[in-house]
């Protein structure tokens, strides 16, 4: 019977207050050790998910979990391995999840930790864009300079639509990882700041400041790719001829 195995070892955290994802992984500073030390311990509070409940929640979260894994690993095979590994780790740690709290944020944290533990050595990809001192409203200002504030059509959407999913992914992929990850969690996965803080194990203020800088970097990256692909020129000409 699955449930009995899952809840074994419940006395591990006896006397501890109901815990959340935020205090799940606080054993050491080393992410790999941390995962093994905390996720191998099947500990929990008075209530835990059944195996069936876990599977249902996992299935709901899988598309976004895979999407996030793909953003981190940047290839399908590694993303699949990471998601699979995350599912197994989460299942082993099922007793640490507190029903009623945010399952998606909890399992995203496990995935992030797993990724950091195994990919830290090759996490960065060379960036071609200089992100220093990127001003606010970068894309808005550049679009205005090039006459792309046309009437009738939403200029931002026109630009993003012409860039397409592949280039938008490339744009976010060019960001230094700490900025790309917060942008992904906020703009793609719709996590609140405090949830992102939990997933990444950083203070909310850090999330806020990384997002502020990250969204400017992202806009600069989008603009450079739009220029490179000839989209800016094409839209400028169209606007001039309108």
């Amino acid at each position, binding site marked *: 019977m*699955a449930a009995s*195995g899952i809840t074994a070892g419940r006395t591990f955290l006896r006397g501890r207050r109901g815990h959340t994802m935020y205090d799940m992984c606080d054993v050491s500073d080393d992410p790999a050790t941390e995962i093994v030390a905390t996720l191998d311990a099947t500990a929990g509070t008075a209530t835990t998910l059944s*195996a069936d409940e*876990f*599977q249902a929640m*996992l*299935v709901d979260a*899988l*598309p976004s979990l*895979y*999407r996030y894994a*793909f*953003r981190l690993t940047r290839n*399908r095979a590694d993303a*699949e391995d990471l*998601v*699979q590994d995350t*599912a*197994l780790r989460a*299942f*082993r740690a099922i007793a640490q999840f507190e029903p009623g709290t945010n399952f998606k944020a909890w399992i995203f944290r496990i995935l992030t930790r797993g990724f950091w533990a195994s990919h830290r050595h090759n996490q960065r990809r060379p960036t071609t864009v200089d992100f220093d001192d990127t001003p*606010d*409203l970068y*894309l*808005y200002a550049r*679009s205005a300079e090039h006459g792309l*504030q046309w009437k009738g059509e*939403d*200029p*931002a*959407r026109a*630009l*993003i*639509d012409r*860039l*397409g*999913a592949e280039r*938008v*992914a490339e*744009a*976010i992929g060019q960001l230094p990882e700490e900025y790309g990850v917060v*942008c*992904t969690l*906020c*703009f*793609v996965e*719709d996590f*609140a*700041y405090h949830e992102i803080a939990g997933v990444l194990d950083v203070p909310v203020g850090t999330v*806020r400041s990384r*997002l*502020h800088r990250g*969204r400017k970097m*992202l*806009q600069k990256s*989008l603009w450079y790719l739009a220029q490179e692909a000839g989209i800016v020129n094409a839209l400028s000409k169209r606007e001039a001829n309108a």
Partner: protein
Amino acid sequence: MTHLSRYTCEEAFRRLDGYLDHELSAEEMVLVREHLEVCAGCAREFNFESSVLKGVGQKLQQIDLPGDLQARILALLKDRQ
């Protein structure tokens, strides 16, 4: 609702991120919204930013789960039970 005074452009702009990410207090959200209703310049900037971020989110959500991944994971979990 007696003390609400309109934000200036600067005060509204300082809250751009929080407004778009729904991270402001309810009162701040109202004050920013009220500013945007009367300031076409700020409204244009906010709408542009909002549109960029929504567009990015939608584009990046377009990744399909590999067909057999769910089945493989569920089979593995079944083995562990």
